[in-house]
């Protein structure tokens, strides 16, 4: 009897072992050729699936030769312009045998079309393609910023993909509800549960509304929905969150959508563990954090992910090197193959603590879902700014706790003294840098393709795409035709931008408060008062987020903190050009411009900002914040940047203190 309890049996009743989850590494950089080599090396090392990172222009629907794309080509992922880039990217990789995850949202339909076109060109059976296009547009509006079109049109594109995939590539997950970035943006477990499930319901409701499926086919659609979840450092709570997810999805699929087939109700999810808690200080500690976070989603059989990707220990510093990714992959392999983790039935079944915690999470998440439902669902809660404001609030609370030492982060606000990490002693500083010249190769492939493709065919397929968009036809078919005609990513997106328009969501910062009262706050406010007395006006800051990098948490927190300190703050959200940011600062006669950049394009953007200030003959101090490696500091200072803040500068009031000092230094002697 006892033995029976700790032996895992398969469906036929034989003792068995769980198969391991899919091991992935979120990877891609520089250009298609380099990324292809990286993929093949990773697969040779025992990785079992691909997870493609695309660069920001590809994610936002710009070809590499667009002016806005230039500083970003190949920085945070691989640039993809045309089918030719996919031919290079998947060279010698049997895509029909792969399980490919693409972290792509605004342009997901386009990238899937390229994948389909490549498979057809290779003569493969397209129906065998397996993988996922992330395609969760809601979290893009909330946290990550690579949206293009307004919500209604984005949802239509997603539904088009469900319709297409169900009939042509039934093993493909057309979308993947991604709550990962919600946690990165500060979401509590309850918010992560509620917002993700509300998003799932929004998609299913839209699919239902299209009314193009029989109930049996609709059930298959439900079965295709997968989730991409974040696992944070509070790993027991995170494990309970995964169990709550499964239970709630079961309730939703049975209760609301009447899914009879058990197979289609399964809560299928992949995980990327949290990067939010990784520190730039004592970065070697991140290795332990990553392991613990991985345990939350692997330890118990009933809450074990289907695919896992782990960040690297040095992600808070900059891009990880191939060696760092290899180290991350090895952790998964040790966990799955050396330990006895996969040999047991669920370890937590019957645990009173776990059961009660799960119940709690479900109750609270259901309350939140009810609120969203009463607003009219997830799309409405995006449009009215509710979800965004909730996340900004949670993030502000989290940061206030770190600042107040209520939340301990080892090496950051506690046990700060340590021996410098030998891991960063390498001549490369322990980080990976993309060669700025490598963009030339991408641009050359693009211009070659443009020169040799059939211009008439390009025009015809784009015209069809435009017509289909206007007439409400499924856009997948025209998109695949475009892919085959060597249309570019920018051309595809521009055609749809013309019809659908572009979208600017709520910034979520208005009306926010920071729960932080300390001597430091008082000190900064005293300086602000002094400034006000001396000049007759409050200090005014323009917080800017230039370029395509949509990770706006830092900018939002600086905006909220500056207001808390007594500044007048102008923050207009993401994806502004340096010209727009400078124009705001000039018209408002701001005392300082604060720029937030995480994509590694700080030098190029600094140059553009200072060129624009020169145009207006405006002498406004500029400070930078973001993931900026130390070796770049000197360059930025030489361009004119007055101060640079990195994740190490987590204390919001220390940041504000330095900013008010910079602003005060400019008080003219005459007043």
């Amino acid at each position: 009897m006892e033995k029976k309890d700790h032996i895992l049996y398969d469906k036929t009743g034989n003792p068995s072992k769980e198969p391991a989850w899919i091991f992935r590494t979120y990877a891609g950089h520089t250009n298609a050729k380099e990324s292809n080599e990286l993929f093949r090396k990773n697969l040779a090392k025992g990785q079992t699936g691909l997870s493609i990172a695309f660069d920001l222009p590809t994610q936002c629907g710009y070809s590499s030769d667009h002016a806005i794309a230039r500083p970003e080509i190949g920085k945070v992922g691989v640039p993809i312009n045309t089918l030719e880039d996919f031919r290079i990217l998947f060279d010698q990789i049997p895509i029909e045998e792969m399980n490919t995850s693409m972290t792509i949202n605004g342009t997901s339909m386009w990238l899937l079309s390229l994948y389909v076109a490549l498979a057809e060109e290779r003569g493969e059976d397209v129906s065998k393609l397996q993988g996922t296009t992330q395609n969760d547009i809601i979290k893009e509006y909330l946290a990550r910023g690579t949206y293009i079109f307004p919500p209604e049109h984005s949802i239509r594109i997603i539904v088009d993909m469900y319709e297409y995939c169900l009939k042509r590539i039934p093993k493909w997950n057309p979308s993947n509800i991604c709550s990962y970035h919600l946690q990165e943006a500060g979401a509590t477990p309850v918010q992560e549960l509620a917002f993700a499930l509300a998003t799932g319901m929004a998609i299913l409701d839209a699919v239902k509304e299209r009314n193009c499926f029989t109930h049996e086919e609709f059930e298959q659609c439900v079965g295709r929905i997968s989730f991409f979840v974040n696992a944070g450092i509070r790993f027991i709570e995170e494990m309970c969150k995964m169990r709550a997810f499964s239970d709630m999805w079961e309730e939703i699929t049975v209760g609301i959508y009447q899914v009879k087939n058990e197979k289609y109700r399964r809560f299928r999810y992949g995980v990327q563990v949290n990067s939010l808690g990784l520190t730039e200080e004592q970065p070697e500690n991140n290795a332990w954090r990553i392991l613990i976070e991985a345990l939350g989603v692997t330890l118990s059989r009933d809450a074990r992910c289907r695919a896992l990707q782990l960040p690297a220990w040095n992600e808070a510093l900059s891009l990880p090197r191939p060696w760092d990714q290899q180290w991350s992959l090895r952790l998964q392999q040790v966990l799955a193959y050396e330990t006895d983790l996969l040999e047991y039935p669920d370890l937590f079944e019957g645990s009173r603590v776990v059961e009660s915690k799960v119940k709690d999470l479900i109750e609270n998440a259901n309350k939140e879902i009810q609120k969203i439902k009463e607003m009219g669902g997830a799309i409405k809660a995006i449009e009215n700014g509710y979800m965004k404001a909730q996340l900004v609030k949670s993030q502000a609370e989290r940061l206030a706790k770190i600042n107040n030492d209520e939340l301990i982060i080892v090496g950051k606000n506690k046990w700060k003294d340590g021996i410098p990490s030998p891991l960063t002693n390498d001549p490369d500083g322990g980080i990976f840098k993309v060669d700025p010249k490598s963009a030339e190769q991408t641009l050359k492939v693009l211009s070659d393709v443009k020169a040799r493709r059939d211009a008439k065919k390009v025009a015809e397929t784009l015209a069809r795409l435009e017509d289909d968009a206007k007439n409400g036809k499924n856009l997948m078919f025209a998109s695949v035709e475009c892919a085959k005609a060597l249309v570019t990513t920018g051309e595809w997106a521009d055609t749809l931008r013309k019809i659908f328009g572009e979208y600017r969501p709520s910034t979520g910062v208005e009306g926010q408060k920071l729960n932080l009262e300390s001597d430091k706050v008082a000190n900064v406010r005293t300086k602000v008062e002094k400034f006000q007395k001396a000049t007759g006006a409050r200090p005014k800051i323009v917080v800017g987020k230039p370029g395509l990098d949509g990770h706006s948490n830092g900018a939002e927190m600086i905006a909220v903190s500056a207001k808390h300190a007594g500044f007048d703050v102008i923050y207009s959200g993401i994806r502004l050009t340096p010209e727009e940011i400078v124009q705001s600062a000039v018209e408002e006669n701001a005392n300082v411009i604060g720029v937030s950049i995480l994509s590694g394009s700080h030098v190029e953007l600094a140059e553009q900002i200072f060129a624009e200030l020169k145009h207006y003959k405006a002498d406004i101090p500029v400070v930078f914040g973001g993931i900026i490696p130390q070796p770049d500091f000197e360059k930025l200072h030489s361009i004119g940047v007055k101060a640079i803040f990195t994740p190490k500068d987590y204390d919001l009031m220390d940041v504000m203190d330095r900013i008010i000092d910079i602003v005060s230094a400019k008080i003219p002697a005459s007043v």
Partner: protein
Amino acid sequence: MTVRFAEKELKELIQEASQGEKYPLAKLISELEKPDSFEFRKVLFKQLENSGFNGDKSVTIGFTGTPGAGKSSLLGEISTNFLQTVPDKKMAVVAIDPSSHISGGSLLGDRTRLSLPVREKRIFFRSQPSQLELGGLNPYTYHVIRLLRCFFDLIFVETVGIGQNEIEVSKLADLSFLVMVPLGGDQIQFMKSGIMEVPDAFILNKCDEENLARASYHTLSTTLEFLRDIVPGGSIPPIFLTSVKTKKGIQELLDFVLKSKPHTKRSGETKVQIEKWIKTEYGNFGLNILSQTHFDPKGSFEEVEASAKIEIEKNYK
């Protein structure tokens, strides 16, 4: 506080601002927004007059409405149409944001909803925190508007307002709009506490859907007819149905604005603003003295302000 700019510098700033240079204009506005700008105002407005800028032909348009009525996005759409269809005129927008809290700091979010072209000299946008002032206006808004009138043909002033107190903007606007969203009878009951009588025209924004728009139009016009005691055969103020999404009604609204003239009440504006200032500074006591004081009705704001101040201080002792 002394005047920060030397005479020559001030002349240059005015000259450059008149040519659409943004930074010089922004600097002038910042000086006006300071609490003790009296000396500066005297010099500035004298200098402007000497340089031939009096703002007499400029039209000020007030845009008031509840948060979420879509005022900023609507102004964004109007700006786009303006830049495309009115090549010979210039416009400015002053957006007053009510957000403010214990630290006194503010988050000015109106720029978010307007996407304006860069380096375009025919349009200028400026945010102002309301600094908790009742009436939705910042204490210095009036002076900023006086300055902008010298250089721009149209000045839009956007304020949040839900009640009678918040419609203050109409006192300095030549044309004031109340911006609303399609609504039903109950909401009108709620809003009619005096506020419906103030605006010169109404905008029903977010009319993305025809039927709802038409129904709201009829509800509003019926209410207005009986609220405003309109004699049979008289006409109710214009109601515009607009939608940023479908671009409905934008050009009509702009055409209406372009046809408007500076209000004849402009001459009384100084008096109203002086009274407002005296009331804030000295309460009813000040107002009483002001009513007994005689001053040149054609005098500038600063002249009246100075003589009123002398009278009040005399009596105060």
